[in-house]
């Protein structure tokens, strides 16, 4: 009996207490944002502070979606993120395939090129990339952002994809080639269907990266109808009279797609990210 108590005590001290503290720290901001987004505007600033939204209302969501412009920001972010995903998917399949299947001169140089980009500081590209896009008349367009995000997201995902492709036996494509396919057809008909988990993981990482990016979107886009969600959120906080209810609602709107996608891929993270990308 005494032994059992000791065990219970040790589990409490070494497991449940620290776990609870850390999880509370992690969950409270989510709770508080949702709580704020569901309160009436007048109740947000009223004392004492409401720890539950009573009465709960959706007026903040309606306001931010219809009046502040989050329906437009949402559409812009969605378009940019999906276009980036498409480009990164195609390029990373081709590059990942070349890395894992072909022996060629310059392969190591190409791998080094991909790895180096992990150290390329994003904020440092702000000015030169802006000047370059200005010369190409791409500032103030979504295309400029799509190109930028594709360049940022490609290296990591190409390496990730090459790992997924290496896991598929090459005999499958050889058999398809015997049957009269060329290599691209073999990839399309044989590899892609098996590669679905890899495609999903790559797409989600790329989507989240493009969806979340702020600095370049702020620098390149100046017209409100072209804003992305992060720029819209930042813009709201720069206004003289901040509407906190609409701001919290806007945050929740921007959070929803990321949370859904993340909960789907988080199980890959521990397997894939650690083993593949970070340890090299």
């Amino acid at each position: 009996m005494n032994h059992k108590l000791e065990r219970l005590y040790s589990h409490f001290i070494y497991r449940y207490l620290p776990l609870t503290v850390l999880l509370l720290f992690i969950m409270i901001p989510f709770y508080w944002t949702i709580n704020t987004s569901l309160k009436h505007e007048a109740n947000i600033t009223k004392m004492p502070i409401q720890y539950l939204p009573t009465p709960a209302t959706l007026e903040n969501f309606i306001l931010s979606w219809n009046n502040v412009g989050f329906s437009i920001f949402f559409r812009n972010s969605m378009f940019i993120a999906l276009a980036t995903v498409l480009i990164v998917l195609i390029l990373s399949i081709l590059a990942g395939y070349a890395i894992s299947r072909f022996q060629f001169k310059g392969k190591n140089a190409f791998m080094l090129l991909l790895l180096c980009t992990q150290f390329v500081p994003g904020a440092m590209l702000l000015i030169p990339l802006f000047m370059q896009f200005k010369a190409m008349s791409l500032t103030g367009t979504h295309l400029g952002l799509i190109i930028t995000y594709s360049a940022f997201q490609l290296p990591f995902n190409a390496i990730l994809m090459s790992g997924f492709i290496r896991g598929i036996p090459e005999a499958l494509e050889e058999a398809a080639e015997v049957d009269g396919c060329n290599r691209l057809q073999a990839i399309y008909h044989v590899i892609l269907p098996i590669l679905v988990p890899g495609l999903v993981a790559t797409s989600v990482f790329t989507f989240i990266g493009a969806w979340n990016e702020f600095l370049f979107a702020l620098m390149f886009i100046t017209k409100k109808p072209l804003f992305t969600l992060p720029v819209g959120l930042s813009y709201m906080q720069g206004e003289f009279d901040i509407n906190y209810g609409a701001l919290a609602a806007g945050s929740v709107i921007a959070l929803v797609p990321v949370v859904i996608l993340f909960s789907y891929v988080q199980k890959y993270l521990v397997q894939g990210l650690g083993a593949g990308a970070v340890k090299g």
Partner: protein
Amino acid sequence: MSVFINKKWRPYLFIAPSVILLVGFLFYPIANVFVLSLQNYNPAKPYANGFTGFDNFVQIFTNDKIFYSTLSISLKWVLSEVVLQLILGLILALLLNQTFRFRGLARAAAFLPWAISGVITATMWSIMFNEHFGVINDLLKKIGIISQNIAWTASPDTAFGSIVTAELWRGIPFFAITLLAAMQNIPGELYESCKVDGGGRWRSFFSITLPYLKDTIVLTTLLRAVWEFNNVDLIFTMTGGGPANMTMTLPMYIANQAIKSNNYGYGSALTVIGVILLTLFAALYLKFSGFGKEE
């Protein structure tokens, strides 16, 4: 013959689009920033534009007080973020590596901030840090730690701590994820034999877990240090570098030069200094940490 050529060039056709994208939109601009750094370039003052040699650098090193303060604030920012994130991330990984009920759910919840953008993180924490109706002031008053409301992000004493806390929230999962992944590669027999030898919880941690994680820790702290150094989104949204430049890191200063003052030449010179500092740091870090060497 045409088949032979086709086969020989095939790999290059496969990687060509990637190479074009990366060279054209990552490496060319990096090279370009060196050229820009030698110019005076401000679209609002076209009459003054042109090559000025090392004038920008002379100005930065002899006349720019903000620049020197951005260096120490950047160092403080990177150190506090990487150290705190590593310690708490390691603790979280150790906790989530044990078996208990609802572990899958706990992992999913614990990792979630990893996917949240800097701007949303800043927004959520700004609402909680608000001086007048923020929940943090309310909670701290309830437990009696403070008696008066604090303007967390606007006061010089607390602004830096506020942005560190918010970024810490977003950064812990990165270490938790990568360290947990590395822990799963540690052979279980090692722990068994340590137990047989009478080693307890702490000994198995220091003699098995930590040595096994060393390379992962070296690489992830380096990646994280570079990443946190460049991290502007959250600071930009929460404090904008203020109050009185107390949270102005070097990249935040560069972003201000680019977005607010449009000093592209001067900003490029600051960028060049940043790139050189980062490269030096990464090289020294890998050299002195003995990355990849066997014990």
